[in-house]
């Protein structure tokens, strides 16, 4: 490629033709401009650089005039500089940056893809350029100098000295006719006789000539060989130079393409990198140059020797002999000196690992919103977990912008199971003691285990949806054998309980069904007066006709003794509770509510811990009392209710009684239950009361 380019480009210098090995334009910015007239405009260089380019081209001319030696020295000097800005003189100013070549790099073609990516420092006139680019050589002058050197060394060797012939010696002259081996000088024969050569060996001049010739021939061969070697070496060096440039160019291109996007942020990075490379290049080139220089010197010496020999061969015999000897010496010496033909520096650049991580980070971080702060997980609310799921709620800071949340979990193992403890047996729900209202249920159970249990879990599903689709809620970590669970009104639930210990959970207990309609309670047998019987279903109270013992039972704290009464177990939940009692017209009864600790020796309503409605039927007259603290308003009711509705309203502190069938409101107490109250029932005469609960409030009741 070099050759072609060389052919194409013309030289407008007065350089010998044989110096076409290197493209002039490589070192001569002038020429280059001719080739790429639009280059400057196409460049996306900064103006400064463009100016530099222009200036350097202008300077290039000037440089050409300079003394070679001077420039060589300056080159060396220049190579030692890292940065344009450090260069003081105009020379330097005009010099483009190390990394920026005025001349397209050698591998121009290959820059096409790079150009498509970025058009950064250099314009990508790759298509045009088939020529060599020895970018980065710096000033044209430098290149020129080197070229001249090359020219010098290369051209002659290959062309002029292809065939090296020592011209035949001329006939002997009247000069020396014998040769003193000792002194290694041709002498006249008669000189032998003289003192200085008396003892010396003398041979006839012809012989000396012969031997000298031989020797010289040998050395000539060696020289020639060396010349060829040096030529090759020079060639190689040249290629190395080219490759160096090429590689550098590639590297440069890589960097360009990568950094083009982030102009501002990467400008510095690019410069740094290029500078580093440039320095490297400088080092290499310097080393190579030094080698070259020494090589050149070597060649000089060789050539000088050759010239001398040449001249010598044209001399008179005597002179020739003289010189030949000396020459032989010199040659011998010279050839002994080791010529280093090893290239000191590798042309390859180590693959630069391009570290763009921080840049990538920079690029990536341009549009980001600051990371949000960690959300705060709310404490687990009751009824928010099932056997296989947990409901987690969290809150975040209002300043944060959040796109999504990532929830992760891991099971937390308690202290290792250790010994293989068997899982406990399932508990047994006390279904008869379930109490519920519209918003909650109170369940209690038997442990079902002899050994202590760590905790219990209550699981509930809505009964409408079958097992498959229903979500099972669970309440975990229950320490005792009862639990108050919040529910939705108007639903049916199926409830299970599990026991839990270190061996794991038990199987589910037998289910219990709960309907959150109305309030549901059962009579508390513990409070039952001995004369009362409670039915199996816990809803009917019976005072039998059998003759009652005359003696009243002894006082008790738990069950009624004087008043033949029983209490129910109402769920301790504030809100509305409604139940109904079926009564007989002729029955003497009392129904109402009372605190749990109502005195059991007293009548219901006789104290301030109970409120009730009492019906007494005597002499065909119905008497109705609404008792609290022994007082009652004077109320007449003309139609005796058969079904009494009782509404306990904690929120409004009211207790109301209704005639259910007539939707008639009978009476309302304003009571302030500071604690929870329970339904109470008593039968003053034999008869029965039937309780109906788990029914929702009738509409007329809602007015109250």
């Amino acid at each position: 490629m070099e050759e072609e380019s060389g052919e194409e480009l013309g030289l407008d210098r007065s350089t010998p033709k044989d110096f076409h090995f290197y493209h002039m334009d490589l070192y001569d910015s002038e020429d280059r401009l001719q080739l790429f007239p639009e280059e400057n405009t196409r460049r996306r260089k900064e103006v400064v650089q463009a100016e530099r380019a222009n200036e350097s081209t202008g300077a290039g001319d000037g440089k050409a005039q300079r003394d070679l030696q001077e420039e060589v020295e300056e080159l060396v000097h220049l190579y030692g500089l890292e940065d344009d800005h450090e260069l003081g003189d105009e020379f330097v100013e005009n010099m483009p940056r190390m990394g920026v070549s005025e001349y397209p790099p050698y591998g121009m073609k290959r820059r096409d893809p790079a150009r498509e990516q970025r058009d950064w420092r250099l314009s990508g006139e790759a298509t045009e350029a088939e020529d060599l680019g020895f970018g980065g050589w710096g000033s044209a002058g430098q290149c020129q100098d080197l070229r001249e050197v090359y020219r010098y060394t290369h051209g002659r060797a290959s062309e002029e000295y292809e065939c090296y012939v020592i011209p035949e010696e001329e006939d002997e002259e009247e000069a020396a006719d014998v040769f003193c081996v000792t002194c290694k000088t041709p002498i006249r024969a008669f000189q032998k006789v003289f003192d200085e050569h008396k003892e010396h060996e003398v041979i006839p001049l012809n012989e000396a000539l012969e031997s000298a010739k031989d020797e010289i021939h040998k050395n000539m061969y060696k020289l020639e060989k060396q010349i060829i070697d040096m030529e090759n070496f020079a060639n190689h060096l040249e290629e190395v130079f080219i490759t160096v440039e090429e590689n550098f160019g590639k590297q440069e291109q890589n960097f360009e393409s990568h950094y083009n996007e982030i102009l501002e942020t990467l400008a510095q990075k690019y410069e740094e990198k290029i500078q580093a490379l440039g320095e490297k290049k400088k080092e290499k080139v310097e080393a190579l140059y030094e080698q070259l220089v020494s090589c050149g010197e070597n060649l000089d010496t060789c050539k000088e020797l050759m010239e001398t020999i040449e001249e010598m061969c044209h001399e008179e015999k005597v002179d020739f002999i003289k010189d030949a000897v000396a020459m032989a010496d010199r040659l011998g010496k010279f050839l002994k000196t080791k010529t280093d033909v090893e290239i000191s520096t590798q042309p390859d650049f180590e693959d630069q690992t391009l570290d763009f991580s921080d840049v990538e980070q920079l690029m990536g971080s341009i549009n980001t919103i600051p990371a949000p702060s960690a959300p705060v997980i709310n404490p687990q609310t009751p009824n928010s977990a099932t056997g296989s799921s947990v409901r987690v709620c969290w809150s975040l800071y209002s300043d944060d912008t959040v796109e999504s949340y990532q929830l992760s979990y891991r099971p937390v193992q308690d202290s290792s199971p250790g010994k293989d403890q068997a899982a406990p047996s399932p508990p047994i729900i006390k279904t008869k003691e379930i109490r519920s209202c519209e918003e909650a249920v109170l369940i209690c159970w038997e442990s079902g285990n002899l050994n202590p249990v760590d905790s219990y879990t209550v699981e509930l599903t809505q009964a409408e949806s079958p097992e498959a689709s229903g979500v099972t809620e669970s309440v975990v970590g229950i320490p005792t054998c009862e639990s108050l669970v919040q529910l939705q009104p108007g639903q049916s639930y199926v409830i299970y309980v599990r026991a839990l210990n270190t061996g794991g959970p038990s199987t589910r207990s037998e289910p219990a069904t709960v309907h959150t309609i109305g309030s549901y309670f059962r009579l508390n047998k513990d409070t039952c007066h001995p004369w009362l019987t409670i039915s199996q279903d816990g809803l009917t109270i019976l005072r039998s006709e059998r003759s009652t013992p005359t003696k009243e039972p002894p006082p008790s704290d738990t069950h009624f003794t004087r008043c033949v009464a029983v209490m129910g177990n109402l769920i301790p939940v504030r809100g509305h509770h409604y139940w109904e009692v079926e009564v007989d017209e002729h029955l003497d009864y009392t129904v109402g509510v009372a605190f749990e600790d109502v005195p059991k020796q007293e009548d219901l309503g006789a104290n301030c811990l109970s409120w009730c409605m009492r019906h007494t039927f005597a002499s065909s007259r119905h008497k109705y009392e609404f008792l609290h603290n022994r007082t009652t308003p004077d109320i007449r009711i003309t139609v005796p209710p058969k079904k009494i509705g009782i509404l306990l309203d904690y929120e409004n502190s009211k207790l109301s009684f209704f005639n259910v069938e007539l939707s008639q409101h009978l009476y309302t107490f304003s009571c302030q239950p500071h604690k929870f109250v329970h339904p109470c029932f008593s039968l003053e005469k034999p008869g029965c009361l039937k309780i109906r609960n788990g029914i929702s409030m009738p509409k007329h009741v809602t007015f109250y």
Partner: protein
Amino acid sequence: MALKQISSNKCFGGLQKVFEHDSVELNCKMKFAVYLPPKAETGKCPALYWLSGLTCTEQNFISKSGYHQAASEHGLVVIAPDTSPRGCNIKGEDESWDFGTGAGFYVDATEDPWKTNYRMYSYITEELPQLINANFPVDPQRTSIFGHSMGGHGALICALKNPGKYKSVSAFAPICNPVLCPWGKKAFSGYLGTDQSKWKAYDATHLVKSYPGSQLDILIDQGKEDQFLLDGQLLPDNFIAACTEKKIPVVFRLQEGYDHSYYFIATFITDHIRHHAKYLNA
């Protein structure tokens, strides 16, 4: 009939108005009070008629009873007419406070000189409801009636004589058995003559005994310290006994310490209005 608005006052979000009109039944100008609850702006409301007692006009109830809040909350239009025709220039109408002016007893008089004007029963049960239905946003199918003392008596007899017309009825210290009390005897003999059979037609206790109609739910409040109770003017026991007999549901409350005044009415007016609302808003 042209209504002339006498006054209008905003109260509990609604409007307490007083109108005057020419009554056909009574042959004179009559005033009545109407309370329109906030709900009346957007739709028809049930109507609750209040009948005041002896010596009252349409003003007593609307100024003393404090009923507006409950009426407003339950969305009831409350109509309070006058207690008798006024300015008829009948001889003797102003002689007594318990007979004549202010003591119409809610009967249609048959005796002269009263029979021309003193037709309060027809006025209350026919003319006034027609007038109200035509001029105010009321639902004619939902009507109830209540009153105090003589008005209590009036409410009871209107309800008992018109089964199904009223959804509910209640009374404060009503004259339950006028045929047997001095007030009743005086009034009935003046308005109706001496034929006591005509009297029974306006006696709640008697009417109950032959009441055939639909279920009534009667609420009666009676002040225990009511002087007229003690004087035997009111006789609620008779009424209760009759109702018990006939299984007419009554809740009769004898309120300890209360008298016959509007203070007593004001105390329990909310209960009564709620009682009516239960049926009117059902």
